[in-house]
């Protein structure tokens, strides 16, 4: 997990919570303990997991990105629009269109992230305000592009009906597809695989690259980092670009999965991502957090939702439980810091 924390409890506390919760659910919730259900959980977690990964990069630098939910909506709409553009399909074929649409989604997300980062780093505007503004702008843009209704499945009698459906199917193979898994009829959801791959990639970037080290340094002490020659502004632009690209990726996957890009997709997802990042050990004060923590944070929420679903607990209670878990995670963090003594000096 994080290279910045020590102690078994801090390191594996969330993992232990996921395991304990899963054990509890396996005993009491009918149908929890099966490969099929595990695949379902992972599929449901994948969107939030990817958003949380990007959010964690931002939070480690002591920033925040409120725009990811709206960016998911906007990129999803753009992906759907590109995918069903008859010209594009004619030019590059059905699979080509799916690939181009994916690239557009990632690029649009990253570009919006670069805008967030630039406004934050170069103009010195508080990231909460910057991303609150881009969140609103992106949501408005998504509704503007679509006229407020989802883009996707063509109406009957559309001259390019066949091709559009084929293109949507091509992307669906990515966003909604499953990999055959021995011993399971349902298979392993590809979005979950994508999430795991990106978390692994994120973990390597954070722990093994110069950029990753700079991310921690900027969040741990921005002034000391700057005086040490760390390109603080470039690092900030980088983390917001990563967060935006993650939102774009999530937009691609959701559009593929639903065969449609809705302007209202991803509402409030930013708050779920922040919650998962914090549960996973990231500190809003900066300097602390990890990619595996992001995954475990998202998993804990996913397992909790799934277990409570299976136990037949009302959705309203699920929200209350999720809020309580967030509080517990933060209290746990405060408690371990106090116990480890902090710095009593000065």
């Amino acid at each position: 997990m994080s290279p910045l924390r020590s102690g078994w409890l801090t390191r594996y506390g969330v993992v232990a919570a996921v395991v304990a919760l899963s054990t509890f659910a396996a005993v009491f919730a009918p149908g929890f303990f099966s490969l099929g259900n595990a695949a379902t959980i992972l599929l449901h977690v994948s969107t939030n997991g990817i958003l949380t990964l990007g959010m964690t990069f931002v939070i480690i630098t002591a920033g925040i990105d409120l725009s990811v939910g709206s960016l998911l909506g906007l990129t999803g709409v753009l992906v759907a629009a590109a995918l069903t553009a008859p010209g594009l399909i004619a030019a590059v074929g059905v699979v080509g269109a799916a690939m181009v649409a994916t690239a557009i989604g990632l690029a649009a997300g990253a570009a919006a992230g670069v805008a967030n980062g630039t406004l934050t780093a170069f103009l010195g505007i508080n990231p909460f305000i910057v991303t609150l503004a881009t969140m609103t702008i992106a949501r408005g843009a998504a509704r503007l592009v679509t006229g407020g209704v989802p883009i996707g499945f063509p109406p009957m009698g559309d001259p390019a009906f066949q091709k559009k459906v084929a293109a949507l199917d091509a992307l669906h193979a990515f966003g909604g597809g499953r990999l055959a898994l021995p011993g399971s009829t349902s298979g392993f959801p590809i979005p979950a695989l994508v999430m795991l791959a990106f978390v692994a990639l994120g973990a390597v970037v954070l722990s093994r690259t110069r950029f990753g080290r700079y991310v921690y340094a900027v969040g741990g002490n921005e002034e000391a980092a700057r005086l040490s020659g760390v390109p603080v502004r470039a690092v900030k632009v980088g983390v917001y670009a990563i967060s935006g690209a993650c939102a774009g990726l999530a937009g691609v996957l959701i559009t593929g999965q639903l065969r449609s890009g809705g302007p209202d997709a991803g509402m409030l997802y930013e708050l779920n991502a922040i919650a998962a990042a914090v549960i996973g050990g990231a500190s809003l004060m900066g300097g602390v957090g990890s990619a595996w923590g992001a995954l475990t944070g998202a998993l804990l929420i996913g397992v909790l939702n799934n277990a409570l679903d299976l136990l037949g607990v009302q959705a309203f209670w699920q929200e209350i439980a999720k809020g309580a878990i967030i509080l517990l995670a933060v209290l746990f963090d405060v408690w371990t810091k106090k116990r480890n003594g902090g710095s009593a000096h000065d």
Partner: protein
Amino acid sequence: MTLLTLRGITKRYPGVTALDGVDLDVESGAVHALVGENGAGKSTLLKIVAGATAPDAGTMAWDRRPVTVHSPREALARGVTVIYQELALVPGLGAAANIYLGMEPRRRGLLDRGAMRAGAAAALADLGLLVDPDRPVQELSVAQRQLVELARALVREAKLVALDEPTATLTAHEVAHLVAQIEWLRAKGIAVIFVSHRLDEVRRLADTVTVLRDGRRAWTGAAADIDGPTLIRTMVGRDVVFERRPPGRAADPVPLLSVRGLSRGWVRDISLDLARGEILGLAGLVGSGRSEVARLIAGIDRPARGTMTLAGRPFRPRSPADAIRAGVVYFPEDRKQQGLVLGMRIRENITLAALSRVAPRGWVRPEAERELAAAAAVRADVRPPEIERRTAHLSGGNQQKVVLAKWLLTDAEVLVFDEPTRGVDIGAKTEIHRQIRALADAGKAVLVISSELPELIALADRAVVLREGRVQGQVRGALAPEALTALAFGAA
């Protein structure tokens, strides 16, 4: 009449005994000066008087009745006001609101702003400060803000006012005004504790002096009974403070770094030369512009006017990263705020400025990084050189050595040290001095800023003295404290 009596006050922090059985008697209507080197325990003693910290042992009596103080609020209620160096005012509020903070007069549940304004204006006028009591205090000068804090003490009818180095950042004129106000407080029968590094002020103002050394009381007596040199000897506990290490080589005849007419804000027209093999001291009082000059050289701030050349070529750093690439590094004054990422390990801090050396194409090679960091930690004498420890838990001296190790790795040619041994114990100080001399002997050009004259005298081969943002003069050859002090105070 004795107002406050402390007996056997002891305070320990992890690894340090800040105070060790200190006795103190403070009289009403008298000024009691508290002097001592950095780290002698003056600030800790003030915190205990203020109720901000509880002593581990010892007793306290107020008006000859034993008391325990659990919070600053209790101390305030008893009539103790402590004015810290970092003033405790809310910047966006006016003097009136600040003065009455926590004790606002009310009428029918609402703030009685008229009474606050009138009371504040009266207290400020008593102190010779004529400002609009509604003007946000952030628009006032440091000296004016101090007077606002003093006015707060007056309004609270404080019986004891303690000031922690109040004159450190004031101009001579402002100091004179503050001294007059303190004398007025004394005449009103208020007890004053006055912490200062400026011994001439102490001897002029104080009735009684207590010297702290390494957490113990070294001497207490009437100010009239001790002369300046004796006072200094008592503070440091020895005649020679630091052994001066002679340079191992002569300075290059040609300067490596030349600064001409550098200006920014109130820092004007700074010119100086720095050659390989020499240690140049940058002397002057706190607030004379020393750090500002260092920051301009290190690319942290950009000059409005003036030029610099490095090895004969124009040197115009646009950022610290630029300066580091050119071989100019800045060892900052405040290691916790500017020097270290405290949450990171020693290893991560040491390699932060030179990460590219172990991260070809951006990928950090863990083995190479460990080796590089371990070697630098040993070279900088980090004790013990356990590079996986977190810097937050290290002692001040060790933290400073980690910062030193970081800069050693950059292979810089010009090193600017801003207060390299502030808050560092004597052993670490000597070691850091040895390191700095070794750097100069290895052909680096070194600039050292220090508020401690003995340190500058021990380290520097010559000195440039700043005063109020300008170069006041140069001292060559063996540095005489009298000459430096005279220039710094503008008496020459």
